[in-house]
């Protein structure tokens, strides 16, 4: 019996079991990360057959339709925009390429709920368009079309960045080969370039789909009901068991997308050979200015106009005294909960990442996957799980700001893990062994040698978690103690009552902070 256990343990760790304390710590972290989501699934078993049947009959089909149709529509638009822009910026003689490469990624710094608020200001029933034209736009912003428009405008950069990165790595060998075989420029694009980009486009599209499935702020602001907003309002009505049922369906939907992505990645894989020479640029000729107009139009809709709206209302807000003591109080609250989450993430990321890097095995891969649970799944579900779990097992933490920080850690720890992991990959395992023979225990090696060496990655990871936490909306709304407001919460509350001069300054602060990690993201691609 004991021998069998030892053999299973050896198999799971690929023959290299790590230090016992280290694996216990990493396992605890991974379990905490996965616990909220697991708990939601577990609780859904208590919803009862009747409730399940009723929801599956009445609510679920409608929600599936509204959610999936929105995800498909947004993804289609985002792919079309992203691929076209990436090709124009990387493969043509479009003027100002270098500038567009990073400015076209900027919409990622604007949380879609902030973008939604900006477009309500412009296109809403009492918006600027009505002021200019005397009548609101024929299609209401509070509709499928509104959600489709706003989400597509703020998510196309996922496709743009991933496709652009693939285009710049692709080199020109294949395209030249096709030209030599008699294909014209359009034929090359259609038969060589686009097929080779398929996996990159797919990866970008999956990011967009996952975002749409998880988005709460934008759809709720635009009063369009998807799974996330339905779950949120179900909880507002204290029908938490129904919320768990809807959550389980949404989790299944998300896992389906993730599974399809893994499958697709396995099938299509193109290896770029070495460091290729950059491809020749396609000459746009007379289309140059049309293309430039298109790029400027996208940039205006996705960045200039929304930021302009925020600046406009912020100026009014500052004049009206919006930056009062209460505002700074919200800012301080935000910094506290986000800062706490960043600190905890930096500490918690290292053990998991270290095991994955130094003890590559089934067990460490499983721990890493568990730690991704809260990142892959929508924030409302994480919040729902933490409410259940907190009330029952962490009453001292429930209804405190600490609970919000914990939710941020569960949601964003993988960002710190990725950043720390890429730093750790640069440190040879021989360094660890050299420290061991110098007399350090495994834990001392991490504390005294690895931590100083991966400090840049740890700090970058902490910064990423901090910024993501500032933006976070659904978990903050659901978990905050009464009277505890953050900047994101204020944006939400003031905007829902159309008090834009109070919402805009806070939103602008969030956007300004969000620009920072974008630079890190751009350096990676």
């Amino acid at each position, binding site marked *: 019996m004991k021998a069998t256990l030892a053999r299973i343990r*050896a*198999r799971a760790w*690929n*023959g*290299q079991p790590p230090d016992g304390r280290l694996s216990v710590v990493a396992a605890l972290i991974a379990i905490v990360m996965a616990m909220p989501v697991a708990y939601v699934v577990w609780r859904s078993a208590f919803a009862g057959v009747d409730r399940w049947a009723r929801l599956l009959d009445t609510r679920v089909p409608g929600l599936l339709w509204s959610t999936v149709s929105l995800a498909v529509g947004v993804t289609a638009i985002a792919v079309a925009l992203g691929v076209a822009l990436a090709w124009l910026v990387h493969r043509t003689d479009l003027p100002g390429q270098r500038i567009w490469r990073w400015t076209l990624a900027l919409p990622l710094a604007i949380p879609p709920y902030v973008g939604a608020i900006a477009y309500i200001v412009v296109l809403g029933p009492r918006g600027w368009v009505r002021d200019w034209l005397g009548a609101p736009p024929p299609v209401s912003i509070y509709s499928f079309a509104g959600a489709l428009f706003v989400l597509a405008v703020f998510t196309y950069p996922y496709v743009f960045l991933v496709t652009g990165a693939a285009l710049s790595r692709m080199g020109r060998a294949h395209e030249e080969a096709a030209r030599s075989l008699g294909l014209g420029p359009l034929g090359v694009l259609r038969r060589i370039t686009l097929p080779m980009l398929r996996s990159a486009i797919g990866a970008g599209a999956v990011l967009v789909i996952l975002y749409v499935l998880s988005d709460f702020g934008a759809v709720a602001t635009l009063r369009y009901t998807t799974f996330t907003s339905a779950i949120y309002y179900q909880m507002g009505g204290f029908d938490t068991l129904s919320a768990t049922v809807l959550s389980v369906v949404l989790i299944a939907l998300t896992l389906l997308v993730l599974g399809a992505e893994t499958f697709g990645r396995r099938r299509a894989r193109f290896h770029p050979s070495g460091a290729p020479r950059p491809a020749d640029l396609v000459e746009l000729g007379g289309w140059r200015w049309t293309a430039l107009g298109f790029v400027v139009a996208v940039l205006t809709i996705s960045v200039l106009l929304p930021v302009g709206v925020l600046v406009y209302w912020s100026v009014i807000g500052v004049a009206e005294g919006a930056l009062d003591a209460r505002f700074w109080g919200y800012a301080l609250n935000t910094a506290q909960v986000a800062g706490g989450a960043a600190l905890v993430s930096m500490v918690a990321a290292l053990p998991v990442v270290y095991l994955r890097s130094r003890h590559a095995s089934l067990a460490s891969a499983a721990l890493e996957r568990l730690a991704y649970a809260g990142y892959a799944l929508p924030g409302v579900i994480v919040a729902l799980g933490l409410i259940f779990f907190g009330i029952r097992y962490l009453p001292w933490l429930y209804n405190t700001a600490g609970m919000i920080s914990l939710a941020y850690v569960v949601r964003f720890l993988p960002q710190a893990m990725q950043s720390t992991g890429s730093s750790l990959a640069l440190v*040879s395992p*021989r*360094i660890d*062994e*050299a*420290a*061991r*023979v*110098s*007399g*350090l*225990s*495994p834990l001392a090696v991490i504390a005294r*040698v690895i931590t*100083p*060496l991966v400090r840049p990655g740890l700090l970058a990871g902490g910064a990423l978690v901090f910024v993501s936490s500032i933006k976070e909306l659904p978990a903050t709304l659901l978990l905050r103690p009464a009277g505890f407001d953050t900047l994101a919460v204020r944006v939400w509350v003031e905007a829902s009552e159309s008090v834009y001069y109070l919402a805009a300054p806070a939103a602008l602060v969030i956007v300004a902070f969000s620009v920072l990690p974008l630079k890190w993201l751009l350096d990676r691609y």
Partner: protein
Amino acid sequence: MAEIVLDTVTKTYPGITSPAVDALSLEIKAGSVVTLLGPSGCGKTTTLRLIAGFERPDAGSISIGEATVAGPTAWVPPERRGVGMVFQEHALFPHLDVASNVGFNLPRAERAERVAETLELVDLAGYDRRMPHELSGGQQQRVALARALAARPLVVLLDEPFASLDADLRVHMRAEVRRILAEAGTTAVFVSHDQSDALAISDTIVVMRDGRIEQVGSPREIYQFPHTRFVAEFVGRTNLLAGRIGEDGDSVVTDIGVAPCRHTHDLPPGTPVTVSVRADSLELDAEGPLRGVVREATYTGRSIDAMVEIQLADGGTADVLVHAHPEQVITCGDEVRFRVLPEFVAVIGEGGPG
């Protein structure tokens, strides 16, 4: 006295059927310099990592000094084994300067003194405040060695320490490392796939193949009297010939003629055997009894490697490799005469060359 004892040690990596180290037993004497030599995949690095404690044996036991460090009931982690290690890419801590690398984890009381002493030993006095990236390859090597020696380990383990150095520096560092180890008086175990490193630096060479020991001996024994075909071919270049033990017991009779041989394993006359005749033991000599035609000649600077085709008694031909002094002029098609020196002729087993 044996400093390190490996007793029927076996290590199999998960998912791989053949063991990386297969029931290996080895004793390493205190103060000696031993090289584990073999091609990649022979288990030499695994053996070193087993001694260091980075791998656990599946069976067998290992002791260092008085203590059993690995066995069915014993396990001592690497940090408590009293070993020092020099890694292939040096693995200096990039965030620490030379003094902090060498003094890493030494007791504070003796740190400064010991760092100064050790840096003196490796000829790097005054480099204390340099960072690793400011050092040349040879200097990094010295720091790595100093770090391994600073805690006065019972044993220093060196994993392909010369592999990352270029040719000139390599020859120089071999002599330096030899000197430093002799002054420190530590037992040292090297891992190498390079025969010239192994021959130059070791008291004892352990030739390994497929996780087992092929032959243990001094560099001279390994080179002059290889016991197996594998050792003969892996260490240096050689000619393998079929033959039988001569009537006097001090020679072998081969297709190319009778060669004097002092390493016959006392096999009775007439036994069919395989003979290794080193290229160095074939000496060009106008009076020599053997003759042949040069098919290929490669000038290497240190010697001329000539492939000579010899007419056999039965009418066939055989190609043998001959090392000639570089001052000689040899061109393809020349007819040459040579003789066999007895020192580098060894019987490596019974039966013909497979």
